[in-house]
């Protein structure tokens, strides 16, 4: 048996989190030209990521990532495999524990202190996984109900009503009593979206929601997401390779590579006139596919 190596990573020194007002002012200055989001006066970012660092063993996968997301904004995160985009997303709802830096949700710091009620936090941050992660022993309806009854304390009747509404919204009203095994991948992912939305979170995190799907099933899932963004006014952070979706729906495109945010801006700017060489290269490889 190999002896467990003593791992020592230099944890980067990061400055303390900014005050809410200062952060909002700076973020406004920074993000104004980069997003289609229509700012309201005195608006604060709903998610603030400041100097985020994350290491696995001795590999630093996130290096001083800074990003602010505004209420109702749709941010698409792009980048090659291993660039740290999924890790960043998972840090936001603490599925991964950041090594250093600050994450603030509605100006409440969730990192560091340890005071955060993680379960409470996660109720407000819906997540859709690449591999759906539906509960296979429950029907579609029960998958959507379980968070409402167990976590939000709703009655079965309320939860069921909500579940049927949400399943209808993703076009699966007639599949409520199917188990995940009886559904296609695309249908499963739509149930997973309904499950997340039924909790009425403030932010929805999508971790490559269409990567595991056959090409012909991608469309249905993207349509659901588009509907959420355009008609639901939902704040969404989407890690994806879907250029079309990013271009049409996103307010802002963020390009990450090697644990760093390399470039961000309006989707058409990033896609059509990438300033960064690596961004161009990556986009070229994606479009060539």
């Amino acid at each position: 048996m190999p002896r467990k190596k003593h791992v020592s990573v230099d944890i980067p020194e990061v400055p303390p989190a900014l005050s809410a007002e200062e952060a909002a002012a700076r973020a406004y200055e920074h993000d104004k030209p980069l997003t289609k989001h229509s700012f309201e006066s005195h608006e604060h970012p709903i998610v603030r990521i400041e100097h985020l660092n994350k290491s696995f063993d001795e590999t630093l996968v996130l290096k001083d990532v800074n990003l602010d997301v505004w209420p109702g904004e749709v941010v698409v995160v792009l980048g090659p495999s291993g660039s740290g985009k999924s890790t960043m997303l998972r840090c936001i709802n603490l599925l991964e524990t950041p090594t250093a830096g600050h994450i603030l949700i509605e100006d409440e710091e969730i990192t560091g202190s340890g005071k955060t009620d993680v379960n409470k936090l996660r109720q407000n941050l819906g997540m859709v996984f690449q591999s759906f992660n539906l509960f296979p022993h429950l029907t579609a309806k029960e998958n959507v109900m379980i968070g409402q009854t167990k976590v939000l304390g709703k009655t079965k009747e309320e939860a069921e009503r909500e579940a049927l509404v949400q399943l209808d919204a993703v076009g699966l009203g007639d599949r409520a009593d199917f188990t995940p095994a009886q559904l296609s991948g695309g249908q499963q992912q739509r149930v997973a979206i309904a499950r997340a939305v039924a909790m009425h979170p403030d932010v929805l995190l999508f971790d490559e929601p269409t990567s595991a799907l056959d090409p012909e099933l991608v469309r249905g899932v993207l349509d659901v997401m588009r509907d959420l963004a355009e008609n639901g006014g939902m704040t969404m952070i989407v890690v994806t390779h879907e250029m079309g979706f990013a271009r049409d729906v996103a307010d802002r495109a963020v390009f990450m590579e090697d644990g760093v945010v390399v470039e961000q801006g309006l989707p058409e700017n990033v896609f059509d006139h990438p300033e960064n060489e690596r961004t161009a290269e990556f986009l070229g490889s994606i479009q060539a596919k």
Partner: protein
Amino acid sequence: MTQRNTSLARRMAQALVACAVAVSMAFCVGVALAPAGAQALTTNKATARPNEQGGDGVIGGENTRLTWEGTVDAGEQVESITLSLPEGASFDGSTTRITVLEGLNRVSVDGTATPAGDTLKVSFATPIPEGSLLRLEVTDMKFPEAGGDYAVGGSYVNQAGQTEALNDSPTVSVIANTPLQRVVTWLDGQAWVSAWNSNAFLGMFLKPQLIVTSLATLFPGWLLCLLIVIVAYPFAIALGLAFAFMKMSRHKPVRAIAIVYINVLRGTPLFLQIYIAFFGLPMLGVNINNTILGIVVMAINSSAYLAEIFRAGIESIPVGQYEAAASLGMNRSQTMVSIILPQTVRRVIPTVTSDFIMSYKDTSLLSSVGVMELMMFAKNLTTVSGNITPYMAAAIFYLIVTLPLSKVVGNIEKRLAHAEKGTGPRPKTTGEATENA
């Protein structure tokens, strides 16, 4: 002097009277205490001819031959005799042979036998002379079906026309004639059974009469086996689950306890554990009912195996399930109870059922410490009959539980395999997710 003499004489007279009274009293008591002295027809014996095929037992309700013998004492002659048996016996349809021996000479005596239910009256044409031996052989009579120890009683009439009671004979042991016994008796009479049993193997391993007897005799043992394992198993499941969680605990001492418990119990034979419990506890002065102790030992032993089954089951649930539950805001216990355990149960049902089958079979080891389970009965019956058939019957009892359960396991496995198909790209899940990070 005279005075003295007189008083002496008086005293002697008193003594004489006292003596006389004492003697006469002693005589009287002797008479009262010894009615045998007045018995003039003494029962010597009563026997019945075995009517159990291939055995030496007397079965109630089946024809047998009763032999009764008595001695006619001096000064007495017997005109007639009535034999009686407890209710349920029957002399009806019997024939009686009378033999009278005077010394070594056979005396020919004629008589008529009149059966009447459980009594038989035999009247002799000439009285049986004193000092002779009277033997009655009653063919085709029946003892009561219920079985038990029966004495032949009755009465006789002497030459003076007086009716005297007969003393009870030594008892005859009679086997109860149950429906089972009737089946065995019927089998005994079948030609094919004789042919079957004449084959050395079939007669030794699968003797039809013994199969029937064994199935009936072993039945309570089988029930006890089921009782032991059915009572033990819920405890084993609870204990197993507790130790499974302990082994996955974050606290090292808790983990260590679970590891020692599981490894010691899985690493030693159940047989040894049974011996330690059954011989060790009494030495500590702890005396527990055998069956209960058997249940406890079986439960503890199974719990170690179940703990590993449950742990493996819980750990086989993909990380994504925990993450999905977490992303909904569920806490650890909610995740376990609502998401992980229900899925674990489905996955471990086949393995747990297999373990149940093992435990059920392993109850046989308890026979070594005197728990009256299936093997114990089989062993006893084999010892008595000198035949292996009871063990084969025990095998049947084990199989009627294990075969259907194995079938169930197979079906569940098939169904699970079917259900798991198409539940999303699970193999890709964890590997790729981290890779993409």
